[in-house]
């Protein structure tokens, strides 16, 4: 129990008020610290909804989500924002950088949001992350002037900036070509080893999923398979 960084207890999700659609049914899941997990499932299976709930971006209709043993349903919006900022890094399918800022500024953004000053040490860390994702050369480019792969790698560096314990990734390579996909996964694995970061990655690519320590399959809003290596 103690080394579960995320725990879901009886999580359910219903969308709609007039016509109710239940997308998640009584999910019981726990993710261990430093683990590398993948969630697979068909479109509409509820896997993205699940990830959003884990990431406190969405609230469950029933059940609770515990992050480091803290019941997130009891936290205010601002407390949740702080929790996300400190504990969780997100990598989305469509990279979601702020197009008005440069790659480097995007990477620094989580530190600024945390209200911490941009010290030389912080800059050095950001430089190091840019280097890790292989973007040192384009770090001063505006986000919109980079290729899809570069943007996705910038998003990864950004997700790592506050040294979060958890990284949630929703189809992080969804719109990348297969070579870049490989590169990005190798990078995520490396980060997992190097920084002991817990990864929960949604993918529809079985090949990729098989590289994870654990594969959870969601089918029709329920956990269908849970395989640990």
């Amino acid at each position, binding site marked *: 129990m103690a080394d579960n960084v995320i725990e879901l207890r009886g999580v359910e999700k219903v969308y709609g008020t007039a016509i109710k659609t239940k997308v998640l049914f009584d999910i019981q899941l726990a993710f261990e610290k430093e683990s590398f997990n993948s969630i697979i499932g068909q479109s509409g299976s509820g896997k993205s909804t699940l990830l*959003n709930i884990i*990431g406190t*971006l*969405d609230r469950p209709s029933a059940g609770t989500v515990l992050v480091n043993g803290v019941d997130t349903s009891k936290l205010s*919006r*601002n407390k949740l*924002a*702080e*929790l*996300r*900022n*400190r504990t969780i890094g*997100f990598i*989305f*399918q*469509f990279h*979601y*950088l*702020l*197009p*008005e*800022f440069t790659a480097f500024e995007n990477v620094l*953004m*989580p530190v*600024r*949001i*945390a*209200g911490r000053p941009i010290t030389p040490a912080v800059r050095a860390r950001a430089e190091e992350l840019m280097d890790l994702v292989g973007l040192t050369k384009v770090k001063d480019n505006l986000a919109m002037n980079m290729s899809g792969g570069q943007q996705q790698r910038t998003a990864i560096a*950004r997700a790592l900036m506050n040294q979060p314990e958890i990284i949630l990734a*929703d189809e992080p390579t969804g719109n990348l070509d297969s070579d870049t996909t490989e590169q990005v996964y190798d990078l995520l694995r490396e980060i997992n080893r190097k920084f002991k970061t817990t990864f929960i990655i949604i993918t529809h690519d079985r090949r990729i999923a098989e590289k994870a320590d654990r594969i959870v399959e969601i089918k029709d809003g329920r956990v269908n398979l849970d395989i640990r290596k």
Partner: protein
Amino acid sequence: MLSFKIAARFLKSSLGQTILIIIGIGVGVSVQVFIGSLITGLQKSLVDKTIGSSSQVTVATAEDGGYIANYDEYIAYIDSIDNFQSVAKIVETGSVLLYDAKSKSILVRGMDFTGSESIYDFAGKLTAGRLPAADNEVLIGKTTFEDLGFLLGDTFVVYMPPTTGGGTAVERTDVTIVGVFDFKVTAINDAWVITTIPTVRTILNVGDVVTAIETQVTDVFASDVSALQLATLINDDAIAVVDWKSLNEELLSGLNGQSASSIMIQVFVTLSVILGIASVLAITVLQKSKQIGILKAMGIKDGQASLIFLFEGMILGVFGALVGVGLGLGLAVSFTTFALNADGSPVVPLFIDPGFIALSALIAFSSASLASLIPAKRSTRISIIEVIKNG
């Protein structure tokens, strides 16, 4: 400050749109500055032309033809009230001018030239000659001077019919013309004969009295208040304190109408500026909802997200106000520089009041900030999930 930095960057990244909004606010502010300066200028010039060279609050006996003996006491009262800036004693009487078998009615005004000069500016209105220095020296109006074919140094008779002045007046007094004035008002140029106080006292055969005390005030629109204060101090039913406002009701209602229309224009301009900014910023929230969603996912708080739009409004307000003041002053200056009368005076008299301009700028800034409250509030409703789902 993160929210400010993001706001500035959002505005910078869509520079074209930002400039357009700033120009929009600027045009609004410039109209306000220009109309405001124009109306104030018109009013000032109108007031100045109408009552600038006349008594604004006059103390006289309630019944015509009376005298005030204790005028020193009244002058002391006048001096005790802040708004009064100049005081002059007057001894005047209606009379008849006789010259070379011609006659005309005149108003002989004995003036104390130190006090009256600041009200009437005779020196500036002299077209020939000089001010009276000794008794029985007079200034006459341009019209009389020309009509009767006078020359400087000519003498005429001030005739008091035995029925005037209570029958005690001196019937015939010879006076010498030492100067000619032009008030640009025919009634005055035609009737006034200006001389020293002792001359008129001698004509009227009276002692140390005056017929009226004339004053000017600093704030002409508060003249009624000052007049009332003075009347209270004098506290004598036989004495009337009359202010220009009660004598110029039509002018006053015209001025009030102007002020009201000016305020109306300014209110509507401000309103349209507010609506413009609010609607543009509301669209900006939609444009930037993806970014706000990302920021929220990264842990930005609702308050900080709202501040982004508040700062956008403030930045737009500051630049809009600057552009507007610049444009407005530019318009004003070009009007006063290029639109001139034949004599070189501006067609549109503008009054540029730094206080008013600062106020216009402040109104623009506040209204832009106020308008941004709507999008600021909207931004808190942006759901991260919606943004992520819709890509």
